[in-house]
């Protein structure tokens, strides 16, 4: 196998990982600050994609579509937080899992009710179409490079926000000590709504970006949601750095496992069974990764030690 192909696959893994990060960052923030486990995060991803597809269909502008995705997901997030989520903060994880599971049902069928049962169309804008040639002669889709760049910018922005800004300080304070932050005179319920909306916006943004190269359909959020959970558990819940490392790890494992496992197995068996068994194992690879990490470090790579 050529080095170029390996390099290209690594890029693919990175790009996949970065998109996962946008989902995982929101999840981990929400967990870190509010202690809430939110299964409905995938629904916000879907809301973003649908909003983007609807706006792109009406206006033809991809930038407007992205803005719409951000706005719609943030709004949906804020509404859900005000109506439902805030009643769950002092509940146990079980209630949170169940209530947000219920939200998934409502969001999915509600979206289908509004938009119908067929997938929607959302395309890459013309200026991001087609491949570019990277050093080494690798042809790589421009849009995916854009995804990597956008994702890294968001990650950096998020990091800066948390490290430098007032709201970031409040978020960090909230992670460490909820009573202290109330004592500082911060309006905690406002902060929670804000953090939830921020997480939702990130998810919606990811949904719109990814929706352009995938299919915008009901139920698109749940597979990503489960991956995002794997990410934050691997990285350590509540840690943005953990989410980033976890995303890349999961993205690379999934991509490279799918590509290389069949080839490695090919050394021991014929092509067909190698393809078969290899892809079977590859489909379990990230869960095996997660299991291994948790057995080694029960609170994830960057999680708080108990």
């Amino acid at each position, binding site marked *: 196998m050529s080095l170029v192909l390996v390099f290209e696959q690594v890029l693919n893994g990175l790009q996949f990982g970065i998109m996962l990060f946008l989902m995982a960052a929101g999840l981990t923030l929400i967990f870190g600050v509010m202690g809430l486990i939110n299964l409905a995060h995938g629904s916000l991803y879907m809301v973003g994609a649908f909003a983007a597809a609807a706006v792109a269909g009406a206006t033809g502008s991809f930038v407007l579509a992205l803005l719409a995705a951000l706005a719609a997901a943030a709004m949906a997030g804020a509404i859900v937080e005000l109506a439902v989520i805030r009643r769950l903060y002092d509940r146990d994880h079980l209630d949170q899992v169940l209530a947000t599971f219920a939200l998934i049902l409502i969001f999915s069928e509600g979206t289908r009710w509004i938009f119908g049962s067929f997938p929607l169309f959302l395309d890459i804008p013309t200026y991001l179409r087609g491949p570019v040639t990277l050093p080494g002669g690798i042809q790589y889709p421009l849009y995916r490079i854009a995804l990597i760049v956008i994702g890294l910018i968001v990650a950096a922005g998020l990091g800066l926000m948390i490290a430098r800004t007032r709201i970031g300080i409040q978020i960090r304070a909230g992670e460490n000590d909820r009573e202290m932050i109330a004592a500082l005179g911060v309006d905690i319920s406002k902060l929670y709504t804000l953090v939830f909306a921020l997480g939702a916006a990130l998810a919606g943004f990811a949904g719109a970006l990814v929706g352009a190269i995938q*299919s915008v359909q*009901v139920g*698109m959020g749940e597979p990503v949601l489960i991956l995002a959970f794997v990410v934050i558990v691997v990285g350590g819940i509540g840690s943005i750095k953990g989410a980033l490392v976890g995303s890349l790890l999961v993205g690379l494992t999934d*991509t490279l496992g799918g590509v290389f496992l069949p080839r490695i197995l090919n050394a021991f068996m014929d092509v067909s069974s190698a393809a078969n068994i290899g892809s079977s194992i590859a489909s379990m690879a990230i869960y095996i990764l997660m299991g291994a990490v948790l057995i080694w470090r029960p609170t994830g790579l960057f999680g708080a030690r108990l």
Partner: protein
Amino acid sequence: MNKKILALSTALLAAVGMNMGAAQADTKVGMITTLSGGGAGLGIDVRDGFMLAIKQSGRDDIEVVIEDDQRKPDVAVSLADKMVQSEKVDVLTGIIWSNLAMAVVPSVTAQGKFYLSPNAGPSPLAGKGCHMNYFNVAWQNDNLHEAAGAYSNDAGYKKTFILAPNYPAGKDALTGFKRFHKGEIAGELFTKLGQTDYAAEIAQIRASGADSVFFFLPGGMGIAFLKQYGGSGVDLPVVGPAFSFDQGILQAVGEAALGVVNTSQWNKDLDNETNAAFVKSFQAEYGRLPSLYASQGFDTANLLISALDKADVSDADAFRAALKAADFNSTRGDFKFGDNHHPIQNIYAREVIKEGDVFTNKTLSVALENHSDAYAADCKM
């Protein structure tokens, strides 16, 4: 449009209600199909096509009970029990997915009910597991893939890269393609079921030195693949079965699908009277172009009606013979059943084009003529 259908079924139900005196002459049909969740589009099309044919027949002695299986096998089984035990239907139909069909069909046919498949055609039901009360009105699962293999021979492809999801239908697809494809296989990949990112696969296609690509990725997987393939700069010709290029899904793929050749036993431009009338009336009734699935639903209902014209369901042998005769006007033109009760029909190669603002298909050629399936010989009936 959903309301219309509901109204229609209620009207039918009401008609049956009033005819209680002549109840024994009525035929009760149970339709189990996917109406909610991810794959609902297919089920809705089958249902709409089916109900359109029933409506056009003007018969008020056919009662259709429609239930949503949510694409869950256990729900489908439970509904089948309900249809048989509680609704006491005579004929069942409607299932979209092979795995659901495998869960339901053997048990309902064993209970003496007729099953008409409007979509799924898993290989066991065509071969060793065939049953005299099971009729497939769509295709055996391998058919469209076999046609794709045949078409790539015609198109002169020598080295094809093939991929499908890692599940039984995916494996059948690749086997079916290889059964007819004479060229070399540049690479063979099984992707994860439900996978949405194909960058890794596309990179391998690029690196493989293939001259063409065959893929079977139903639903959202196909949309994702095509969009990503379109943006990748790999411009090898793509061949696939109709599922990823059908009317319902095509608008979501967009430009990326233009020019792709796909194989299907039906297309809206097939030149026969029944088809022309079907396309027109379907559009008039539901305000959208019919899909492959709608045509299959429509044909299934017409097959049923043609058999009911000849025999009563209560006379199982006569009714079975009437079904086997397939004496109805199909939207596909010529249609007949083989000995394993699967279709013998032409399968066409069609190309995705744009008509005004709408993406649709144009028939190119016949890929396989009067094609049966590879499992018929295993069927002992």
